[in-house]
């Protein structure tokens, strides 16, 4: 018995230590420095020491994309003042989980001790309005202290989306997220006889033509799209009214109906592979074994998700195109279908995603928050470096125009295409005037509900009914249309 007690005690100690280690490791991430850009960024006017900074900077997000950028381009540059600890809290986005966690923290903001108050949090376009139109976010000009000049280089739409009903800008972003159609060069050659982006664009410029190409691809044994939701954003971003009207009634736009109609036809004809976004078959379809013509993807999707899925063996940790070009080439050349993708506009202009930084009311690190916003979202040098390093499309029109005109800038992943040029064209058409605070729930639930319809499990009316049920469960204040 004594031995048993000792065993239990040791096990418990082990388990407790393990959980402590496991809990502290994310903050103890090593600040990796990919490369030193020649010039220092102007944001190095060191934060005034006389202002008292909170000891802990709390940043909330739903993935580690910003964390990576922050580590490389802010913390890695030594811009975090001595004695301030940066703490990231990451909650997955799916099923409103991030929003729910964030809501709870924001509602507790006043009562929380200074070091636990949220200072900076990220929001997505699908629910940005929910936070922007409240007192939980700060005006980035009046309260945080950015100047109109600072943000003048950004895309206007990235500011409009986070402008509240009184006209105050409540957030700022380092990226713009125009969408394109990424297609497989080898499959395009087989189906259309050419892989030239302009010729392919010509062949896909309207939905009717897109349908024709799908037919041809099908005849050759390919699938035009991977799953049901691939083309969703091209329709949902071109709606004529928000999801919910002023009486809290749900409105399904004609464009959403078009998506349902088209996807059902594609599914019944065998033009897609019956996958859903983010599932494993969908990811596999983008890889070497995939037989799918192309994918609708926006900026981050092409250079993070698609690239990752296209490789046979994942990139080694810390290898980037600009950090170590030799290692990057060695790691990617002949790896999977790296270089086989190219991009074109596709049949319809759209955007997808995007992350905004919001300053939380009650933050005790306003100075630092301002510096982060300034460096990460307004500073042309930093944004240019980010684009060069990650191929992402950043939120500075001048910088992006310069790169689009730069013939030496090309994406090896896209077979030497300058994708920034296309993004630039697509970004002009972004219109976010019809977003609502409910978009995430609506988008997820309509995709889930109609998956059954596309699969043939239920009829159309049942799927529609399931959609209303699920959405009203999520947002009890909403009503079905009469």
């Amino acid at each position, binding site marked *: 018995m004594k031995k048993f007690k000792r065993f239990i005690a040791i096990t418990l100690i082990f388990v407790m230590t393990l959980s402590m280690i496991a809990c502290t490791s994310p903050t103890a991430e090593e600040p990796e420095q990919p490369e030193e850009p020649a010039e220092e960024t102007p944001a190095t006017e060191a934060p005034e020491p006389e202002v008292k900074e909170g000891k802990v900077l709390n940043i909330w997000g739903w993935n580690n994309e910003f964390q990576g950028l922050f580590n490389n381009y802010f913390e890695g540059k030594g811009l975090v003042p001595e004695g301030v600890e940066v703490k990231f809290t990451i909650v997955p986005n799916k*099923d*409103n989980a991030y929003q*729910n966690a964030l*809501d709870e923290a*924001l*509602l507790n903001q006043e009562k929380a001790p200074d070091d636990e108050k949220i200072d900076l949090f990220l929001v997505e376009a699908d629910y940005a309005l*929910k*936070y922007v139109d*409240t007192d*939980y976010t700060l005006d980035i000009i009046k309260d945080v202290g950015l100047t109109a000049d600072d943000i003048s280089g950004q895309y206007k739409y990235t500011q409009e989306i986070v402008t509240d009903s009184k006209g105050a800008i409540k957030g700022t972003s380092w990226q713009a997220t125009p969408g394109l159609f990424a297609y497989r060069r080898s499959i395009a050659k087989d189906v259309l006889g050419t892989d030239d982006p302009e010729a392919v664009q010509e062949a896909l410029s309207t939905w009717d033509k897109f349908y024709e190409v799908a037919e041809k691809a099908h005849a050759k044994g390919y699938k035009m799209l991977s799953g049901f939701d691939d083309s969703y954003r091209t329709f949902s971003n071109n709606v004529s009214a928000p999801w919910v009207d002023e009486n809290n009634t749900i409105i399904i736009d004609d464009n959403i109906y078009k998506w349902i109609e088209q996807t059902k036809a594609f599914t019944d004809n065998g033009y897609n592979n*019956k*996958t859903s976004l983010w*599932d*494993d*078959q969908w990811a*596999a379809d983008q890889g070497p074994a995939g037989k799918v013509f192309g994918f609708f993807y926006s900026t981050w999707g092409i250079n993070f998700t698609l690239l990752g899925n296209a490789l046979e063996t994942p990139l080694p940790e810390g290898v980037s195109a600009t950090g170590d070009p030799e290692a990057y080439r060695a790691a990617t050349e002949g790896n999977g279908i790296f270089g086989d993708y190219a991009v074109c506009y596709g049949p319809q202009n759209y955007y997808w995603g995007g992350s905004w930084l919001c300053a939380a009311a009650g933050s005790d690190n306003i100075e630092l928050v301002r510096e982060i916003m300034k460096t990460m979202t307004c500073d042309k040098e930093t944004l240019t470096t980010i684009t060069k390093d990650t191929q992402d499309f950043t939120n500075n029109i001048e910088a992006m125009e310069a790169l689009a005109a730069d013939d030496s800038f090309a994406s090896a992943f896209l077979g030497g295409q300058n994708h920034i040029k296309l993004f630039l064209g697509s970004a002009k058409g972004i219109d976010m005037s019809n977003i609502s*605070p409910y978009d995430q729930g609506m988008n997820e639930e309509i995709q*889930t509900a109609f*998956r*059954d319809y596309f*699969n043939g*499990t*239920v009829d159309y009316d*049942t*799927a529609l009914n*399931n959609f209303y*049920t*699920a959405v009203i*469960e*999520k*947002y*009890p*204040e909403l009503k079905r249309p009469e």
Partner: protein
Amino acid sequence: MNTSKNKKYKSISYAKWGYIFLIPFFTIYILTNFIPLISTIYYSFFENYMSGLKQIGPNFVAFENYKSILFDSDLPKYAYNTLYIWLLGFIPQITISMLLAIWFTNIRLNLKFTSFFKTVIYMPNLIMAAAFAMLFWALFSDIGPINNLMVSLGLEPYRFLAEIKGTRGLVALMNFLMWFGNTTILLMAGIMGIDSSIFEAAQIDGASSWQTFWHVTLPSIKPILVYVLLTSLIGGIQMFDVPQILTDGSGGPDRTSMTMIMFLNKHLFSKNYGMAGAICVILLIVTAILSFTIYNNITEKDTYTKSKELKMKGGKNEK
């Protein structure tokens, strides 16, 4: 009054220690169980939810929540789903457990390594249900190992999680795998509690093994059977983690694997405390009725022992 005072002095009462030792339990019970229970019932009469970051309510709405749950929502459908999936798992579970329990306890069969088998069949119950569901989700995905195996055997691939039968079947299979070991052990305990002389007497009387089972084993383990049935039913009503993880919270194709607790979770997740409270109260009532049944069944002596007792009494009196 006087006499009771006198009595107090005469004897030392240890009863108060009993009460003192019960205090910790009752304090914890009241704080963590009873108060939340009462407040759940209380809040089920209110409209109380979050709209974005704004709190709506609490506004007193009397039985509105109950009305909309019982008449406007799909609760009957989810109750049917729950019952359906539970039965789909429970029928094979009780059959196989009974068979195994009889084999393991049969003296004539005298199986070897029974303790090894008992351990093995109990194993799945030790895995966390969520992890188990995750495992099945990966195994049975459209390009998972099971489908690969089926294709290489020349069969058509089957999209388990896109089909109603597939999803419900998988949930039932998991519940079966997780609980049949536990049930086997309970039934074995029941069978081993039967006096072996009864079996011997049946043998001498020339009863076949089927007759022995039907007329000796089954009536003797009836209380255990009832206990197994009802605990499993209550567990079935509370079925949540397996279908939740397997269907990613969506309740499977056409919400056909949405159980009642998953429905409750949907409301809790959107912070709709009024509606969630009402569902809880309805479930509480259903479970309470079942619990009373189980209690009565266990305490009430079955006819067999009753008649035995009567005979024994009679015998005593005769003497």
